[in-house]
């Protein structure tokens, strides 16, 4: 500590002053969040002396004589992090889990459609629903196993049944649903079997077996469609976890809409009435849920509005709306019905990918981890007094 040295911390003060002078160009965190969000926002956006993340790639070392010309960019957000590194590990799940969200929902929606068709005498809906359900649940199994780090060990899932693990619960739901959906679909082949001989008996028994299996599958279907919301929400991924009230709603709606899409595609307009009504109900749930996650979560809604997830969710909304409009307005045209069905299916898929990647984005950026938690701590410090 020589007396000749310049005032300590001078370079930092200069750096800080420069930041203050240049102002912050940070996109302001959305303020329409809950009241907690707005109160504490002020706390978190002082003149940026809380340095934010350092740029990932810093150019040049500061060791030499740069005359105070630090190459630090204006911080993008007023929060502190460790070299801008994410705190959380981003999900290692790849696109196939997003695809599974869609196929699982599609299977569930189709089974419900099939059961309805079966009980109300609409064979076209029944047939299309059952066949789609089997195809979708098979695809689901492939996606799920493929995404494992050790696919050959997929059966280790069957060692335990754990209510605290949505994935374990989902495994058992799928285990109950899959075979039922399979039998129901196979029973559709009964009509093609000969009426006599060895296959005759099978052929005559199949429809009632298929009937029972179809109802069983439909019974498990709502669980299959909604547990995935818990699957995503029961993680530390900020934008998934905080959206836990909405995710099952979105996924239920999305599943209904996709099932309805199958009905619109496959059934003649005369039989497609229930599918149209299912489409309306599904779209309503889906649109309501996505609107909520895009607006209710304050800062954590942001990942759902910007970038690729934002584009996906906007596309999903557009497709949903046009699908429903088509289904309602073109109720006499087979072609319009088919187009609407396709739009609804696409909407469901796109929405799932949007929700999935929105969460992934929120885990990758330390801002979404630090800022809400810091707000919580500060609120407790000022309000509760007990200190975190």
């Amino acid at each position, binding site marked *: 500590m020589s007396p000749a040295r310049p005032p300590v911390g001078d370079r930092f003060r200069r750096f800080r002053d420069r930041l203050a002078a240049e102002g912050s160009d940070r996109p302001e965190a959305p303020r329409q969040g809950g009241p907690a969000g707005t109160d504490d926002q002020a706390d978190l956006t002082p003149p940026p002396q*809380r340095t934010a993340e350092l740029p990932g790639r810093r150019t040049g070392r500061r060791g030499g004589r740069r005359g105070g010309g630090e190459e630090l960019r204006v911080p993008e957000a007023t929060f502190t992090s460790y070299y801008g590194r994410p705190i959380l590990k981003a999900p290692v799940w790849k696109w196939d889990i997003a695809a599974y969200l869609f196929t699982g929902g599609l299977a569930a929606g189709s089974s419900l459609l099939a059961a309805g068709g079966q*009980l109300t005498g609409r064979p076209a809906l029944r047939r299309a629903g059952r066949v789609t359900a089997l195809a979708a649940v098979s695809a689901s199994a492939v996606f799920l196993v493929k995404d494992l780090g050790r696919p050959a060990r997929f059966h280790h899932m069957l060692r335990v049944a754990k209510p605290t693990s949505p994935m374990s619960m989902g*495994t058992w739901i799928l285990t109950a649903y899959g075979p039922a959906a399979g039998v129901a679909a196979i029973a559709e082949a009964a009509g093609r079997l000969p009426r006599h001989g060895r296959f005759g008996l099978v052929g005559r028994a199949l429809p009632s077996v298929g009937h029972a299996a179809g109802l069983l599958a439909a019974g498990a279907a709502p669980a299959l469609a909604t547990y995935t919301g818990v699957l995503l929400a*029961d993680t530390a991924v900020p934008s998934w976890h905080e959206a836990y009230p909405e995710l099952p709603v979105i996924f239920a709606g999305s599943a209904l809409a996709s099932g309805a899409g199958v009905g619109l595609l496959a059934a003649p307009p005369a039989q497609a009435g229930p599918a149209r009504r*299912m489409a309306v109900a599904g779209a309503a*749930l889906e649109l309501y849920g996505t609107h909520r996650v895009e607006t209710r979560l304050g800062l954590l809604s942001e990942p759902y509005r910007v970038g690729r997830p934002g584009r996906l969710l906007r596309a999903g909304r557009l497709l949903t709306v046009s699908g429903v409009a088509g289904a309602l307005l073109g109720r006499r045209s087979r072609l319009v019905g088919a187009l609407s069905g396709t739009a609804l299916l696409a909407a469901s898929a796109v929405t799932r990918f949007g929700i999935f990647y929105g969460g992934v984005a929120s885990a990758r950026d330390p801002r979404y981890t630090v800022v809400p938690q810091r707000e919580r701590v500060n609120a407790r410090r000022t309000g509760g007094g007990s200190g975190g």
Partner: protein
Amino acid sequence: MLPDPNSLYGPLDPAPDAGYEDAPPRMGFFTDTSVCIGCKACEVACKEWNGVPQSGLDLLGMSYDNTGALTANSWRHVAFVEQPRPADVLGAPVADGAGPQFLGMPGSQPPGRGSGAEDRTDFRWLMMSDVCKHCTHAACLDVCPTGSLFRTEFGTVVVQEDICNGCGYCISACPYGVIDQRKDDGRAWKCTLCYDRLGAGQTPACAQACPTESIQYGPLEELRERAAARVATLHERGVPEARLYGHDPNDGVGGDGAFFLLLDEPEVYGLPPDPVVTTRDLPKMWKRAGLAALAMAAATVAAFVGGSS
């Protein structure tokens, strides 16, 4: 269904809750960062003892930290934070936590030696050896669908590598971003708190190797007392910014089995300021899913019985 009302959230002794009778006292780590010298002996000892594969040579430009983060192949990680900190206010709390600053390290010389005193900066160097927190309410363990992650009799959390099928759920669930998938292997890996050594009554490799006793191992109760005393001492000696992290059984994860003494806000070291175990909200989540499922069934019924077309 759930034995203890606190089994998802709140203070709890995890080993008896997991079903152990006559469990030994809960063991843990107290990492006192105020004496850490950044030697990385813990990182090396951990790799050696546990046979953790190398993570490859990488220069990250993050001070002397070339490990980067806790990963499947780094179960201890020493963080280096270079922070300007005026000496005249040394002792006064840093203005709400100035963030990490880059001070040109590593260089061939200490900062300011080549350039003369006037170009020197005053900074402090924070070093912290991070590790899995062995949470009281471990989200990783709660969500594991294979039962690969389990609670040991010492209250620690361990992955069984012969069971894990690499589903990756634990990785998204950990609020600290600790557990990680090994790329060429597919399974999840993390600190075991040297379960094998504990069973033999030995100290974990990292604590054994630490030359400054920055990493202390022992019964958690004892460590908590020691930590409280250490904070009091530091406060007395004019380091009011010393604080404990993860020691409180009433925090969002029910307290950590591995807790820390920090000299700045947690996020400066890359730790979450207020982690909460995700399964705290699980009952509410299932309820919402149940409602959504009912809505779905009702909508289908309505679609088929309402209307005639």
